[in-house]
């Protein structure tokens, strides 16, 4: 391991203190950004999101590398466990883009449903809705 018993205890205490401080900072920042601490003061959503995610990733690093001892494991083990989780970054971006698309599509469909007559006219012209009065084949 490399660290003595006394050093290990000190490191653990140091890490838990840092984790506690980051947690308090996260919560205070979340409340401040939504206007709870200074009335009406709002922080833009993407700054809020970015700071929160960064703080949580820092907490994750401290828990995995120190508490779970990843820092002291062989580099091979570290890579086989952590590299696959990078795929999740791709998953997050892909699925959130998907969710956004669903929202926009629902809006488009609702708008289309509002303008029914326009839809019927354009569909008839493209031959998509059958009208016996204009059918030349029967």
């Amino acid at each position, binding site marked *: 391991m490399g660290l003595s018993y006394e050093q290990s205890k000190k490191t653990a205490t140091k890490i838990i203190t840092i984790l506690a401080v980051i947690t308090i900072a996260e919560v205070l920042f979340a409340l401040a950004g939504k206007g*709870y601490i200074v009335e009406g003061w709002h922080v833009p959503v993407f700054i809020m999101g970015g700071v929160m995610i960064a703080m*949580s990733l820092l907490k994750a690093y401290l*828990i995995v590398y120190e508490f779970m001892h990843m820092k002291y494991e062989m580099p091979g*083990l570290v890579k086989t466990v952590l590299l696959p989780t990078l795929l999740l970054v791709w998953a*997050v971006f892909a699925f959130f883009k998907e969710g956004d698309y669903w929202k926009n599509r629902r809006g488009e469909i609702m708008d289309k449903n509002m303008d029914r007559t326009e839809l019927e006219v354009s569909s008839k012209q493209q031959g998509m809705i059958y009208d016996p009065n204009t059918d030349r084949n029967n």
Partner: protein
Amino acid sequence: MADTAVHHAVNEDKELWDGGKSPFKVSYGKIMMWYFLLSDAFTFAGFLIAYGTLRISMPTWPVPDFVFSAFPGGFHHKPLLFVTVMTFILLASSFTMVRAVQEGHQENKNGVVFWMILTIIGGAMFLGCQAWEWTTLIKAEHVSVTTNPFSAHTEAGIYLEGDGHDIKEGDAFDVGASYLIHKHDGEWHNLKYKVTEGEDAGMIKEQAFGPKAFGALFFFITGFHGFHVLSGVIFLLIICVNAATGLYVKRKNGYEMVEKIGLYWHFVDLVWVFVFLVFYLL
């Protein structure tokens, strides 16, 4: 020259394949625990990503600091206080787990049992808190898997009636203002309001229920996490009792079993960090 290069490589391989060496120099149990945790991480990531996707696809979503603002003892309007306490309880239990593992490396049986008992208490306290959270949401606020009375306004307006709690007749609200539809004597009281801006201005509407997915996602994901905490507490108990009876003394492996369950417990804490982030902070 090529012969010696090959000879050297073959020799190294022979040392590796002679047996008695563990990959990455960790025991079978430990490496398997790591890979199990990796698979579990993907499971939770799948759930949290599903939550994010559905939330993004909705026009509105309950605001977390409005939904989670109750505290035991009848307190209200204390946004995120209770879940922050829950986070600290789990973090503290992670610290006591680290201490237990450290005492195990010193082959100190009593130290291991002491710090593991503290960890178990922390886990049990977290479960109790989560049970209180669920009870408040289900009994007091009537959130279920099919109904979600929490939502936020998508247009500005003025309330035409009060609800006897925080909303009074004539209260104005902006886009994004949160509300909770109250239920009395089995009847929902969706307050009426008049829209003041936008294309529906002047219309009288009723408070709409929030997205149904909220209840299902919240109970399922926190339930899945709570189940992991419960199974963790059970395993911790078993291993603590085993340690107390001296089962791990003969093994002389630095109480590696304690280390392995420690990995699982820290994983449970790690998942909570992200559940906390996604459900309550973002």
